[in-house]
C-alpha cells in the first residue's frame, strides 16, 4: 500500500485504506492483557451481559491501534505521525470487519515540515462509523 506523496497531497484526498478483522473473542483475550486493560467487559460474556450489553465488545484502543497502523502506512514512517486523536463513539463487536479510512482536510507548511491534517475513522461491514478521529502527519519538506 502506497504512502501519501507529501509534496503532491490535496485536501479531499483519501488515505490508503486498511482492512482488519473479523474481530474474534481470541483477539480480545490477547489484546486486553497486552494493553494492560483488565476490564472484563471485553473478555467475559456474562459480565458484559450483566452490564447491559448483548456480548463482549472490542476495546476502543484495539480500533485505535488499527488506526495507528493505518496512519503509519499513510505516512510511510511512524516518525511522521505527529498527533492522533480518537473518539470511541460506537461499539465494535466480535465478528465485525473493521476498515480504516481517512481523508485529508488541510495541508500547510510550518518550518521544515509539511503538515497534513486528516479525518480518520473505522467503519464496519454495514458502513457504520465506529471510532472517529483526527490526525496530523508531519512530513519533512523536500
Amino acid at each position, binding site marked *: 500500500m502506497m504512502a501519501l506523496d507529501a509534496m503532491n497531497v490535496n485536501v479531499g484526498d483519501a488515505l490508503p485504506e486498511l482492512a482488519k478483522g473479523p474481530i474474534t473473542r481470541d483477539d480480545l483475550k490477547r489484546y486486553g492483557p497486552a494493553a494492560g486493560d483488565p*476490564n472484563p467487559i471485553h473478555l467475559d460474556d456474562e459480565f458484559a451481559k*450483566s452490564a447491559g450489553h448483548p456480548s463482549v465488545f472490542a476495546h*476502543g*484502543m484495539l480500533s485505535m491501534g488499527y488506526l495507528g497502523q493505518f496512519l503509519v502506512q499513510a505516512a510511510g514512517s*511512524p516518525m511522521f505521525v505527529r*498527533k*492522533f486523536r*480518537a473518539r*470511541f463513539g460506537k461499539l465494535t463487536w466480535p465478528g465485525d470487519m473493521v476498515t480504516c479510512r481517512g481523508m485529508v482536510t488541510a495541508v500547510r507548511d510550518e518550518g521544515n515540515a509539511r503538515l497534513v491534517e486528516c479525518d480518520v475513522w473505522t467503519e464496519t461491514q454495514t458502513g457504520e462509523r465506529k471510532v472517529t478521529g483526527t490526525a496530523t502527519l508531519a512530513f519533512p519538506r523536500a
Partner: protein
Amino acid sequence: LNLNFMTLVHGEQEFEYRRPIQVGETLALTGRIADIYEKQSSGGGILDFVVLETEAKDDQGDTVFFSRNVLISRRA
C-alpha cells in the same frame, strides 16, 4: 482510581508525539487529573467525565510525548 468497570467507558484518547524515543534514554512521566465534569446523557441520566493527562519529559526537560485520556462513567 477505583473505577467501576460496569459503568465505565473509554470516551476519547489523544496522543502527541514530539520526537522519536531513543534506546537508552530516560523519560520522566507525570500524570494528572486535568478535568472532572458531568453531562446529561441523551437517556436522561448523568455521565461523569474524568480527563487524565500524561506528559513524558527527557533529561533536558523537553516534552517527548503527551497523552490525554477521557473516561466516562454512567452514574448509578
